[in-house]
């Protein structure tokens, strides 16, 4: 269910047939960004940097030598990816503000393909939260309703894509941080399998849970970008066996398991939209419950806090006040968990993977709403749905953390809107390494939603 904005795939076609120039695309993106400063989507945006890249791309196209199909397309970058021309702040006062001087591997790949590195996007401080309410430049606003949050932590990327400033942006996902703003703002968001995409140069939140991924206007945009994410990178050993992106996966009638029951509650309105989307899809859908969900959630949270605390330990000792109060509290909690507790969490992680593959009926993809509620209003700290009352932070990660703990590829696709006009996303989770198959399954569901 693509929104009305021009998609990256449409821009690829328009640049190839000469109906757009890279310079015109960049100018339009800059104009739109200026019109929509109220979204607070960007940390760094330098018109001269953007126009210089776009002019070079336009010249390449003129001389018949584009570097790739995406040569000249503006792409916004979450502010935890290192970029050689913009500072990288993770939207925290506890990080140096000088330009890093290098690009993260994925940024370097996109730049080498001629993409215009457009701007750095606002994010939840250090990606350590799912609301985008905590950022040293202030919170982001949802383009669908400025009074509501974007979700996070890639909230600026979600806002920029949903508002049509850019057709695609980069995010990172440790417990849903690509999928949450995608769902809340009405874009597509893809989290690759763990170890398929290089994390080099993406400031870590939690080494074993983090995955970089794109947020896009249309589903067809994602295959244009994944080639720049996937494959081995000697600077990230988890990608040692990563396969390059392979086009061509198809699925006739995928088997979907819709996870329900304790731990997977959602609002009636969200449930209605998801069930309607599934009813229209050419898929075999069965419901199943997963036991011990709160225990697995505790394992995810333990790993998250321990790894984040280990990464930030030196900076925390040096500049504790540089972190926001809540981020510092998370980090201090992580320091108090024991080694035995961390190993117990890692043992639970193995149990979860075993349960997903061996205890559920056979599946090609698992399906859930991306969020149990629509994007909450700013300042609303608690959410109630399905008989549960949880913090807004927990409501945002309610379903998403599962994919990170198990290392699965995941995608959020827009499935409909609430009565108030706020987007509702549907999430699919595939088999590890089966990212292309997951995209093919998403196409089946997306076609059903589009009717």
């Amino acid at each position, binding site marked *: 269910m693509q929104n009305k904005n021009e998609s990256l795939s449409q821009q690829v076609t328009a640049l190839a047939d000469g109906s757009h120039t890279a310079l015109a695309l960049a100018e339009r993106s800059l104009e739109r960004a200026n019109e929509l400063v109220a979204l607070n989507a960007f940390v760094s945006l330098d018109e001269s940097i953007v126009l210089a890249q776009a002019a070079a791309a336009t010249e390449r196209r003129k001389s018949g030598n584009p570097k790739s199909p995406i040569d000249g397309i503006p792409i916004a970058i979450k502010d935890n990816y290192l970029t050689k021309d913009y500072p990288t702040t993770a939207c925290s006062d506890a990080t140096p503000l000088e330009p890093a001087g290098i690009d993260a591997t994925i940024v370097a790949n996109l730049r080498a393909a001629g993409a215009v590195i457009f701007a750095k996007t606002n994010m939840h401080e250090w990606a350590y939260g799912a609301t985008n309410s905590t950022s040293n430049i202030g919170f982001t606003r949802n383009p669908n309703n400025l009074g509501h949050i974007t979700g996070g932590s890639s909230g600026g990327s979600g806002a920029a894509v949903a508002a049509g400033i850019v057709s695609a942006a980069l995010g990172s996902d440790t417990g849903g941080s690509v999928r949450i703003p995608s769902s809340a703002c009405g874009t597509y968001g893809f989290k690759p399998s763990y170890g398929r995409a290089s994390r080099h140069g993406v400031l870590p939140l939690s080494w*074993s849970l983090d995955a970089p991924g794109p947020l896009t206007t249309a589903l067809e945009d994602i295959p244009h970008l994944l080639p720049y994410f996937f494959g081995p990178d000697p600077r990230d050993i988890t990608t040692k066996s990563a396969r390059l992106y392979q086009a061509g996966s198809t699925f006739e009638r995928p088997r979907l398991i819709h996870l329900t029951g304790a731990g997977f509650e959602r609002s009636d309105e969200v449930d209605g939209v998801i069930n309607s989307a599934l009813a229209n899809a050419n898929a075999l859908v069965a419901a199943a419950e997963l036991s011990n969900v709160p225990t697995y959630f505790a394992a995810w949270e333990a790993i998250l806090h321990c790894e984040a605390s280990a990464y930030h330990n030196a900076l925390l000792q040096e500049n504790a*006040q540089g972190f926001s109060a809540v981020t510092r*509290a998370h980090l201090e909690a992580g320091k*108090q968990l024991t080694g035995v507790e961390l190993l117990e969490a890692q043992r639970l992680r*193995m*149990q979860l993977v075993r349960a997903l593959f061996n205890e559920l009926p056979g599946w090609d993809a698992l399906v859930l709403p991306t969020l149990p509620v629509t994007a909450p209003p700013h300042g609303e700290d608690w959410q109630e749905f399905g008989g549960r009352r949880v913090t807004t932070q927990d409501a945002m990660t309610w379903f998403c953390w599962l994919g990170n703990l198990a290392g699965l590829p995941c995608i959020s696709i827009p499935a409909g809107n609430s009565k108030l006009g706020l987007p509702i996303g549907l999430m699919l989770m595939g088999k590890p390494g089966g990212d292309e198959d997951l995209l093919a399954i998403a196409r089946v569901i997306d076609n059903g939603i589009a009717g």
Partner: protein
Amino acid sequence: MPKDVKLTKDQERRIKATLKRIRCGLRRSQRDQFDEPAHLFAPELINAKQE
């Protein structure tokens, strides 16, 4: 800036609540003596020279 900055009461409350929640969750796990933690370690991957 002083390095030793005391935690506020609210931060202490948050830390306590986070630890309680995690520990309650972990305690509910069912152990199997053959279950190992996720701990794959492949030192050969670190040898960039492949000697």
